[in-house]
């Protein structure tokens, strides 16, 4: 593996290996403090995403490396109309590894074909965001200790949520995983995902509009935001939005060992009253994001 563009390019073994490294970093961070000494990570954010960028930068600093880059297209040559290919050839001359976010779908793939420097896709429009999925996987692994035999509920915007699509694809490779897809009719998962991933691989799934009813069977609940702009009219949005807000009373019948994940940022889809519930792990998830990015950087730089 040279670049990371799409989570499905990783084998299950490669994911296991990175998760093991991430757990080792958590156990003994000092051991890794100088692993990337004198190495430079370039964060090329053609579109702003402060959280993702900070996570990459913190990861590189904790490995003893340095960071160069830009945080929005206005401050880069892209604003002058330079192509992705030319930008990458230039940056590739300075950096040892590149994390790239771009509003156009497929831009990181184009970049990866123009340089020998490893490219990490840090999000390309609504398409892929593989380090978020790695973050989700590390969180599930740490909370549940396994990927097999899990009932995973995904709730909210399942139609446009790219993190949802990638997580379903990634988890569909494990044994005895069942999905409960909780969303309003308007925001169900796309047909192609149902046909090409779930049905094709014989994976058990149910679609429902009722979060409370689905709750008791879930081992993992992955919450996403239902955005106002996804609805054709305001009435539908107002009618539906509260059904997909997680509150303590909706958790009454949940399993004791449920894990609640959210890719963040949260707007109001999880009540802050849930934050102190030990089953809420979305802030741990943020930290996991840094650790798995450290493991990924080590892997791509082939640092042992």
């Amino acid at each position, binding site marked *: 593996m040279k670049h990371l563009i799409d989570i499905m390019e990783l084998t299950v073994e490669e994911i296991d290996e990175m998760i093991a490294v991430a757990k080792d970093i958590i156990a003994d961070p000092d051991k890794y403090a100088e692993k990337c000494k004198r190495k430079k990570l370039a964060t090329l954010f053609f579109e702003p995403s402060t959280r993702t960028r900070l996570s990459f930068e913190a990861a590189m600093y904790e490995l003893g490396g340095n960071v160069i880059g830009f945080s929005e297209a206005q401050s880069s040559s892209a604003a002058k109309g330079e*192509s*992705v*290919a030319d930008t990458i050839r230039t940056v590739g001359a300075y950096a040892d590894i590149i994390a790239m976010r*771009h*509003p*156009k*779908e*497929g*831009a990181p*793939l*184009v970049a990866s074909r123009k340089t020998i420097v490893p490219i990490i896709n840090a999000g*390309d*429009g*609504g*398409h892929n965001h593989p380090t978020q999925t790695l973050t989700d996987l590390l969180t599930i692994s740490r909370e549940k200790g396994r990927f097999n035999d899990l009932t995973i509920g995904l709730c909210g915007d399942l139609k446009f949520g790219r993190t949802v699509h990638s997580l379903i694809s990634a988890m569909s490779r494990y044994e005895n995983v069942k999905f409960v897809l909780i969303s309003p009719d308007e925001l169900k998962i796309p047909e*192609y995902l149902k046909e*090409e991933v779930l049905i094709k691989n014989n994976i058990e799934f149910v679609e429902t509009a009722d979060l409370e009813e689905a709750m008791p069977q879930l081992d993992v609940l992955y919450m996403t935001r239902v955005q106002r702009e996804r609805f054709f009219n305001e009435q539908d949005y107002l009618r539906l939005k509260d059904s997909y807000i997680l509150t303590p009373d909706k958790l009454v019948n949940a399993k004791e060992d449920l894990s609640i994940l959210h890719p963040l940022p949260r707007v109001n889809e999880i009540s802050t009253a849930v934050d102190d519930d030990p089953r809420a792990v979305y802030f741990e998830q943020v930290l996991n994001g840094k650790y798995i990015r450290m493991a990924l950087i080590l892997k791509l730089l082939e640092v042992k």
Partner: protein
Amino acid sequence: MRIDKIENGIVIDHIKSGQAMELYKMLGLEKLDCQVAIIKNAESGKMGRKDIIKIDQMIDLNLDIIGYVDPEITVNIIRNGEREKVAHIELPDEVVDIIKCKNPRCITTTEQELPHVFKLTDKENRVYRCLYCESKAK
């Protein structure tokens, strides 16, 4: 109806009825100086009705285009009035600059001179997806 027999050239046969014009354009046959005949709705035992394209000259055809449109189409090479061979048409694994990605969010819309590449992702249903954004080809 009678179309003159070809001495040296190509007969593209078993085109689904109504598809000949599309294929004509995709293959760029309008650029040819030689005679080209498009026969629409010809009777066919196997297909009921079919289209045929006859080209009165030996040219280099991009068989990937034909395979992409329909691998059931047959291409006959005619030499000295005889059918010399039937070219083997396959569903191509990848097509380059034959179809354009229509997704406005795709990198192909902004990146200079980037080839439009589509990959065959589902052979059974003949689904092609953009290499970059994975949009389905229409």
